[in-house]
């Protein structure tokens, strides 16, 4: 059983001459909840689709459960649960028929868990998929993906269209899945609070490049936002490496820096600041700083 469940090697993808993924490399270890973040069009869905073999890469290779994505065996497919953005279910089918089809095409089917989920989400079996609301489709898709007891669960913006209660239920479910031995989740989301709650490793895609790939704790500890008050006007010549963002207003300067260390602290001290306060950063703050167009954030190897 490989320890790396998902591996991406120098992945490049072009759509009509436009580069969507630009040399992305990452590895998701077994048992990890990997949160993939990025703005719209940053390449998250494309990467997930390539991982599942739904889209061929332009260059590079991806491996899922030790197998090349473009040559995934039926057995490997059967060990991966997938909830797609937009929930691509067969719209003309009744829920019952769709469930029957998925059950028939699965390696294993956890009837008890599926029944529990259907009951929890109150999904009607006798209605057509197209008659369900977006939230109900999301719940159905998630239930189908969970019922196969997947070794790897890939979720592409899974909480999109869910209300707060359903989102909470979903997150609890995801945590439940991870608690089972050896289960791995790779998910992308726009709701950073969700990612922060459940992910233990974060990847941030900016314009097709993976600018962050580390654990949530590392990310939070390495990126610091400081409010520095100077005796006079805040200096314009404060040259510290890896400044992600800086804002000056009179005597005050708010500085976001990656890989904060004693050397950088010493440089700051030479400007004799009156005070230097650490400002707490949520994942959302970090994400916004990372995805600024002219972000000075260092590459993945540095963070």
């Amino acid at each position, binding site marked *: 059983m490989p320890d790396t469940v998902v591996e991406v090697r120098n992945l490049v993808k072009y759509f009509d001459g436009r580069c969507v993924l630009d040399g992305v490399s990452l590895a998701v270890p077994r048992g990890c909840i990997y949160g993939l973040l990025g703005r719209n069009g940053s390449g998250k869905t494309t990467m997930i*689709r390539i991982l*599942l*073999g*739904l*889209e*061929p890469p332009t260059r590079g290779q991806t491996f899922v459960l030790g197998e090349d994505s473009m040559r*995934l*065996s*039926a*057995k490997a*497919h*059967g060990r*991966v649960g*997938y909830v*797609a953005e937009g929930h*691509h*279910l*067969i*719209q*003309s089918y009744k829920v019952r028929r769709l469930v029957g*089809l*998925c059950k*028939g*095409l*699965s*390696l294993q089917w956890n009837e008890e868990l599926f029944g529990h989920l259907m009951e929890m989400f109150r999904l009607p079996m006798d209605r057509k998929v197209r008659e369900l609301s977006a939230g109900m489709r999301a719940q159905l898709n998630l239930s189908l993906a969970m019922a*196969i007891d997947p070794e790897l669960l890939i979720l592409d913006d899974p909480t999109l269209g869910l209300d707060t209660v359903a989102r909470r239920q979903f997150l609890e479910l995801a945590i439940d899945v991870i608690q089972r031995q050896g289960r791995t989740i790779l998910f992308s989301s726009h709701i950073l609070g969700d990612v922060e709650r459940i992910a233990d490793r974060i990847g941030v895609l900016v314009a097709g490049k993976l600018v962050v790939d580390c654990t949530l704790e590392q990310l939070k500890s390495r990126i610091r936002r400081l409010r520095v008050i100077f005796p006079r006007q805040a200096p314009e010549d404060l040259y510290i490496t890896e400044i992600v963002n800086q804002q000056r207003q009179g005597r005050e300067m708010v500085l976001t820096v990656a890989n904060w260390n004693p050397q950088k602290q010493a440089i700051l001290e030479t400007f004799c600041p009156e005070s230097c306060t650490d400002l707490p950063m949520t994942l959302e703050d970090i994400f916004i700083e990372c995805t600024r167009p002219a972000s000075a954030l260092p590459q993945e190897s540095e963070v």
Partner: protein
Amino acid sequence: MLSLIGREVYDHLVYVLACCLVSAITIGVMILTSVSGIVQAAYVSSTILMLVLFVGLCALGAAQMYGDRANRISALLSTLAVTRSRILAARVLVGVLTLLASLIPVLIAALILLSLAALPAAFYPRMIWEVSAAVALTGFACYCIGLEIGWTTSKTWLILGSFLLVALLASLVFAKGPGLEAIAILLLFIAAMLVHTWHKFTSASF
């Protein structure tokens, strides 16, 4: 595999039944015209109905592929424990089964009617084999045209392309006659169509 075949049949039941219905009508017309003694009319009407059957088989192939692409069915199926090759294999198998279910009764009926007409015995085996093979292969080739053309989002191309290719193929078989040459051409055509369809389907974005 059985689930995939079941899904294909269930989703395209109208086309499968339509092909079987055309087959039944063909048998009925053949019997009626033979009984009434108008042999020429039997040939003409059977030929026309066979053409309708070929169009029906082409429509089945096109509906399978077009419906899949439009409703992103394979996008869902290929995330389950199946491969793209298996999805396509199940699809083609349903086409073959429909073809056999439509043609075998017609061929049996034709055999019985021919034996009643009492043509020279030595003439039968080769003629029957060649005509049967040519008709079956033409039907399958038409189905393959449907598969090939169906993987599109353009309805105009789907309809025009299918009709043009079916007409071209049928004309070719009629011009050559149902001999060994026609069979060889049809086999090559089917192989090329299937390989291309398989390549297109297994390397496409879902």
